[in-house]
């Protein structure tokens, strides 16, 4: 059937301008360069208390084991594949903050304060040996944390054809 691409206007004028306040209410994402991180800070020690109360039931004491998976790298048992954790598989530290803030605790999503998220992030980064115990984690420091897995990540370079790798 022959069809004709119609004259589409530049704009239809449907929808309403989004105000800065409307955007801010939802704009919770955090980028690897730290854009999106809120004010506030937290330490591993503060995080340890929170973790034991709100997270350990699902992720194990100290973030190891637990019904919903380890978050902390341990020496892998011989012959067993190491569990993927923040320490051995996550390429960006900012993702830890972003994900915990949006999705955890699983049964009370969106319930943590920014300060609590900083503290839990500090706790998990420290438990994985990625920051110092004393670090007061904040918007400036978090993007600077070096993640061991980062250099391993590559984008898909396949473009169809016979390549199956």
């Amino acid at each position, binding site marked *: 059937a022959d069809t004709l691409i119609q004259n*589409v206007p*530049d*704009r*239809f004028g*449907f*929808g*309403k*301008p*989004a105000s800065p306040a*409307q*955007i801010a209410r*939802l*704009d*919770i*994402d*955090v*980028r*690897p*360069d730290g854009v999106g991180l809120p004010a506030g800070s937290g330490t591993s020690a503060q995080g340890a208390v929170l973790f034991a109360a709100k997270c350990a039931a699902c992720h194990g004491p100290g973030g190891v084991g637990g019904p919903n998976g380890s978050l902390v790298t341990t020496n892998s048992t011989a012959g067993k*594949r190491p569990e*993927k954790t*923040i320490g051995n*598989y*996550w*390429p*960006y530290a*900012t*993702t830890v903050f*972003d*994900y915990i803030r*949006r*999705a955890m605790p*699983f049964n009370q*999503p*969106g319930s943590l304060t920014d300060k609590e998220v900083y503290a839990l992030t500090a706790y998990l980064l420290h438990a994985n040996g990625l920051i110092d115990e004393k670090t007061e984690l904040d918007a400036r420091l978090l993007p600077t944390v070096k993640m061991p*897995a980062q250099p*391993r*990540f*590559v*984008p*898909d370079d*396949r473009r*169809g*054809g*016979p*390549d*199956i*790798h």
Partner: protein
Amino acid sequence: TAAVAVVQTSFARGLQIGLPDVPDDPTKRMGAPPGQVGTRSGFEKLVKSPSDISSRSPLQDFHGIITPSDLHFERHHNGVPVIDPAKYELIIHGLVERPTVFSLADLKRFPGVSRIAFLECSGNFRTGKETMTPQEICGLTSQSEWTGVRLSTLFREVGVKPKASWFLAEGGDAAVMTRSIPVAKGWDDAIIAYAQNGEALRPEQGYPVRLFLPGWEGNASVKWLRRLELGDAPWQTREETAKYSEPIKEGKIRQFSFDIDARSIITYPAYPVQVQRGWIEIRGLAWSGRGKVARVDVSTDAGNSWQLAQLDEPVLDKAHVRFRHLWQWNGAATEIMSRVTDETGYVQPTFRQLLDARGPDMGGYHLNPITSWQVKADGQVLHKPENWR
């Protein structure tokens, strides 16, 4: 009078009940009158198989290429939210000229488009024992007709800036699911979908609005869509780093492998079916995220020789296709399998070929191997498990 009785008694209007008692001779008993909403026959027991995080479509029970909406596979990261369509809003901001908020009614006013396309979870592969059905092996793929507004139309409406190269799609579910998507996909064929198989999206599929990225791994087609932010780099969300990435050779981890690699599977005969000697129509589904299915070949001798299968029309871009191959089984034990080739020349690999190409650390995503079924001499059909881990 009798005439009045016919109209007013017999059955209640509205929702029709599936399985009343079965008459000896249905021609001698008045049937149920026309209703408002039909139901599946009570004799048909079609069910997805739910786990804590997903539910698999019963591929072996399907005919044709459309998946009934209530049997579309599910995968979500903290359940199906309840969203009031009257309060629903989609906000688009970031590197745009005019940050804008759209109601559901706004979205429906734009020029729309419908297309039939599959949606597959990139984690759609299980193996390990002989007693596995197509549903268990790869029930995380389904197909619908999707209707919505082209994302390119909304991009023009909000004035996406030239330097925008990625956008973040965010869901309004309890996982507040996020994925970074190249802007080029938005200009190409992405749809902001509000309908599925002729009606509103089903709750499990993103009601009232989802992103739909034809041919791409299902997780990227963010459901219950609440926000799009245009930016100049990927966000590196947990879903595109810790999840939906796959270890390949030399210690590398591949991410943003969006395309669904071409795949096919025989859905009949398959475990737990037992076949009889004689003519058997081998049936299955084939698809590719990179374009159209070019051909499907079937082997009935464990991969030694291959024959071209027939494809039901229509053969659509990035869509499940139904293939059929007529086979006369002589009763000797053998293996049957299918292999798809897509229009880019990609040929569905064996599991061994995948392992050789990706190495021993090969991850669990984007596994699309040729699936073999063992046909035993007694007609039992069993999955042939892959040797992995």
